[in-house]
């Protein structure tokens, strides 16, 4: 696939503080999640690809075209900033229509696009209220509306889910996925792991201005071979089950959970373990009630990579 956004040896610093350090990254169509703690460099990266900052070293291009001081490319980019900031003395409708004017649309086109965007984020009913009177969730939604109102091919969303209630989050996630299904490129940042997990499996882990890992979650899992996978197996006879694995060299550690029914193993070779487990269950007739991998999520991956 062709990279929609490409960063090559990108570095950015603020005085003595390093914001981004030698980042090379290619982002393709679909949803890419930019994940990292606050201050990791996610927003810096987003500002660089939306032309709000100029790289100190390296290049960043969108569809092969440079970004800095190239306003023409913004006809196809929608940006939703992280901060909860607005022109407060306008209504939601005036905010969205006002910003749509900067694309050169006709008056009727502006109205039509604004109406559609506000409808998508379910603010039609409240469009004539002043933004300063909006709730946090409504403010987040109108910010999202201005980013999609011009129907951009690339959507850059900096912490778009913050401030939304669970229902609002679910709706926005659905909406972002719909953009993906239309073949658009969506770059989403978050420091909340489940949010990114809910959106995409294609992630870029950022920490201290560097990319720690990128790819889908299983791929990143592969990268962290140094850390074993933890697998819990709940069984009617966990000790009998454990006995079957005592001689298995792929197992690094075995323990029993306080409930007395769960046997927990740590292994570098997860696939081998599951294959053997299947055999043990079938041959030994030991009943297995549940298998889970407590650390098989982004939080665990992230913590291993940053060495927590």
């Amino acid at each position, binding site marked *: 696939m062709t990279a929609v956004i490409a960063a090559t040896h990108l570095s950015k610093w*603020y005085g003595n503080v390093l914001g981004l350090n030698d980042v090379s990254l290619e982002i393709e169509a679909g949803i890419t999640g930019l994940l990292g703690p606050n201050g990791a460099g996610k927003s810096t990266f987003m*500002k660089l690809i*939306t*032309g*709000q*900052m*100029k790289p100190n070293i390296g290049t960043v291009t969108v569809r092969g075209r440079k970004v800095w*001081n190239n*306003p*023409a*490319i*913004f*006809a196809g*980019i929608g*940006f939703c*900033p992280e*901060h909860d*900031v*607005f*022109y407060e*003395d*306008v209504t939601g409708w*005036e905010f969205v229509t*006002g*910003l749509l*004017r*900067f*694309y*050169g649309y006709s008056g009727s086109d502006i109205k039509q696009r604004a109406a559609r965007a506000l409808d998508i984020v379910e603010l039609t009913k409240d469009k004539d209220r002043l933004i300063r009177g909006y709730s946090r969730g409504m403010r987040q939604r109108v910010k999202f509306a*201005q980013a999609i109102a011009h129907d951009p091919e690339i959507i850059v969303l900096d912490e778009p889910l913050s401030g939304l209630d669970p229902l609002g989050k679910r709706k926005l996630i659905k909406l972002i996925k719909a953009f993906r299904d239309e073949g658009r490129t969506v770059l989403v940042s978050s420091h909340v792991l489940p949010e990114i997990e809910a959106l995409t499996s294609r992630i870029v882990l950022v920490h201290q201005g560097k990319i720690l890992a990128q790819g889908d979650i299983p791929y990143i899992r592969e990268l962290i071979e140094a850390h074993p996978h933890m697998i819990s197996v709940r069984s009617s006879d966990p000790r009998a089950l454990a006995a079957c694995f005592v001689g298995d060299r792929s197992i690094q550690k075995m323990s029993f959970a306080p409930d007395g029914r769960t046997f927990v193993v740590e292994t570098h070779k997860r696939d081998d373990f599951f294959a053997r487990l299947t055999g043990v269950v079938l041959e030994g007739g030991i009943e297995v009630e549940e298998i889970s991998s407590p650390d098989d999520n982004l939080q665990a991956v992230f913590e291993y990579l940053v060495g927590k």
Partner: protein
Amino acid sequence: MTARKSIGEIFGFFFFLGRRTGKTRVFALLGLFPVILAFVVRVVFHGRSGDMAAVFTEILMVFLLQFYIVILSLFYGTSVVAEEIEGRTLSYLITRPLPKPAIVLGKYAAYALLMFLMVAVSLSLSFFILNTGRLADPSLYLTFIGYLGVLGLGILAYTAFFTFLGAVLKRAILVGLVFGFGWENVIQYFPGSTQKFSIVHYLKSVLPYRPTGGGGGRLALLLFKLEPTAPAVAVLMLAVVAGALLALACWFFRMKEYLYEE
């Protein structure tokens, strides 16, 4: 979108926004101060010599020329760029397909018109209240147009200067205060060519007055120590100053990277 259309769209948006802000309401109220004063003067000096109207018209012009348009231009001019940084709304503008200079020029034009309207209302109400006895005199209207023109030129020049400051400096308003109420208020009274390093010198040089020997006559307050530049040259200077400063502001805005304070 063409640069002209971009400027037009920015102008429209910020002229609309500008009318809504609390700042505009405060400054519009400040513009009513000379109107109230004119009304009081008119009532107190009712039936007396027309000279009194001329004296107070002069005081009115001192207020408008040396205070009102300076403070207006200072706050609106510096805010062309600074309010976008402080309010963190710059992201909404520079991620649109707009040439960056269009943002500066469009906002400058929007705010300049807004200020001109405030000044025009203030001047016209107070001027005609003070001069109700001369409403049949055609020269009164010429004088009024002259004053309004000078104030308009002042807004354009000062706002260009403060827009430039706002594009270049973080704390532009402090530097602007020193310039507007320090430098401009002092340097204009220096003899010789030194006074020509102030904007107000050129503004005073195009005031609609008729020298009556001894420099200034009724307009002594405004023309005190003024060694005027020829009006055409003064207008040209103001245009050059405004144009050059705006061009510089646009250049800085295009090249500079503005970071939000965390």
